[in-house]
């Protein structure tokens, strides 16, 4: 995902001279080509995320589309107030890029985990969340954001994620993206972020779930809640899956989105991480399993 991200950013920066990248002393092995090719539009703000975000907002107010970049919690929680006051409330085109969403940096310790980031970002009224499920969705989300610069949060996995889509899909905020068709009137899984691969593999292994469809939603926000009820309409059941706590997460967002249509509430099942992963240190797959993202739980 990281590589798809920097590739899209580089190719956009070739044609748009207002694209800038500000990193918080992170990005080894990823950001160097950008820094070399566009030295006047690259800044390493140092380990100082509040200033990184504030200066990004300043650049954005002068016409730049600025990407801030760091690991998981650092460009998000560390500088939450700058994101809210400087970026979101001023409706400025800053894209906060967090690499290692969820528990991707499990082994590096909980300082590097992001399992509450959706909760923070989705309460900001202008913020568009981009949480792609594979490198193709990364490219699609980047192309959308480059064409529609706005306050945004881009949640990346790490590197080496498999491609689920064969081509770069067309994405639109709040719209579900079909991965596989199910039987008419059956249920569907709906993922956001890197859980797409996990769910896709489980569905492929389990023949008893062959009637289920699979969708992902890489772009969503406070503004796109009203688009959800009509999409739920055609399914008997919708199972949301995310590598984030249920509190303030994607499934909870969906619950809020469909709460005006009580008849649809019964259809929703939310699969999210248990809070027991908070403070835990282990590799991603171990922690996702400890947090309840297992085949047994997802298929229950």
């Amino acid at each position, binding site marked *: 995902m990281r590589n798809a991200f920097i590739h899209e950013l580089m190719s956009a920066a070739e044609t748009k001279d207002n694209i800038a990248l500000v990193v918080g*002393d992170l990005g080894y092995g990823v950001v160097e080509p950008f820094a070399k090719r566009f030295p006047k539009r690259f800044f390493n703000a140092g*380990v100082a995320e509040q200033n990184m975000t504030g200066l990004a907002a300043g650049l954005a107010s002068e016409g730049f589309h600025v990407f801030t970049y760091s690991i998981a919690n650092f460009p998000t929680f560390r500088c939450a107030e700058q994101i809210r006051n400087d970026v979101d409330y001023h409706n400025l085109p800053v894209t906060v890029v967090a690499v290692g969403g969820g528990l991707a940096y499990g082994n590096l310790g909980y300082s590097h985990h992001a399992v509450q980031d959706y909760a923070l970002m989705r309460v900001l009224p202008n913020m568009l969340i981009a949480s792609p499920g594979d490198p193709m969705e990364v490219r699609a989300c980047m192309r959308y954001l480059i064409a529609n610069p706005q306050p945004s949060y881009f949640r990346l996995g790490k590197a080496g994620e498999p491609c689920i889509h064969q081509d770069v899909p067309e994405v639109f905020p709040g719209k579900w993206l079909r991965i596989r068709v199910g039987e008419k009137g059956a249920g569907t899984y709906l993922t956001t972020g890197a859980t797409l691969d996990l769910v896709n593999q489980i569905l492929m292994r389990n023949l008893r779930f062959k009637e289920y469809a699979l969708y992902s939603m890489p772009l969503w926000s406070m503004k796109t809640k009203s688009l959800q009820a009509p999409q739920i309409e055609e399914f008997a059941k919708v199972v949301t899956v995310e590598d984030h706590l249920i509190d303030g997460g994607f499934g909870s967002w969906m619950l809020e989105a469909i709460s005006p249509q009580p008849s649809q509430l019964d259809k929703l099942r939310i699969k999210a991480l248990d809070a027991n992963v908070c403070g835990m240190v282990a590799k991603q797959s171990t922690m996702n399993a400890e947090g309840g993202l297992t085949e047994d739980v997802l298929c229950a």
Partner: protein
Amino acid sequence: MDEGSNWEALMFAAHHKLIQLTAIIDYNKLQSLDSVANTLGLEPLVEKLSAFGAEVCEIDGHNHEQIANALSCISYEKPTVIVAHTTKGKGVSFMENQIEWHYKNPNDEQLAAALAELEAAYA
């Protein structure tokens, strides 16, 4: 020392005369992508720390005697900051001051070579 919160803490400690507080800065002059000097220069670090109200001493961070001396000579009037000058990857020729070793794990061969260098130097 890039994060402003460190300087906030130092201001508070000095203001409240927290003499029990001693901070050691492992000052290896490297950041995550480049040197400190090329990223967000901290110099003159000692003068800045002093101006923020700390008692500052500089030592060779690889010298145990100097570390022990510094810790036994802390101020009774101000919080103390020990600036310990260090070299990242000290003693292993192919690791010293190389950014990549912030990230890499040595393979078996590199581990053996590194241990051999360290054992030869400290035997």
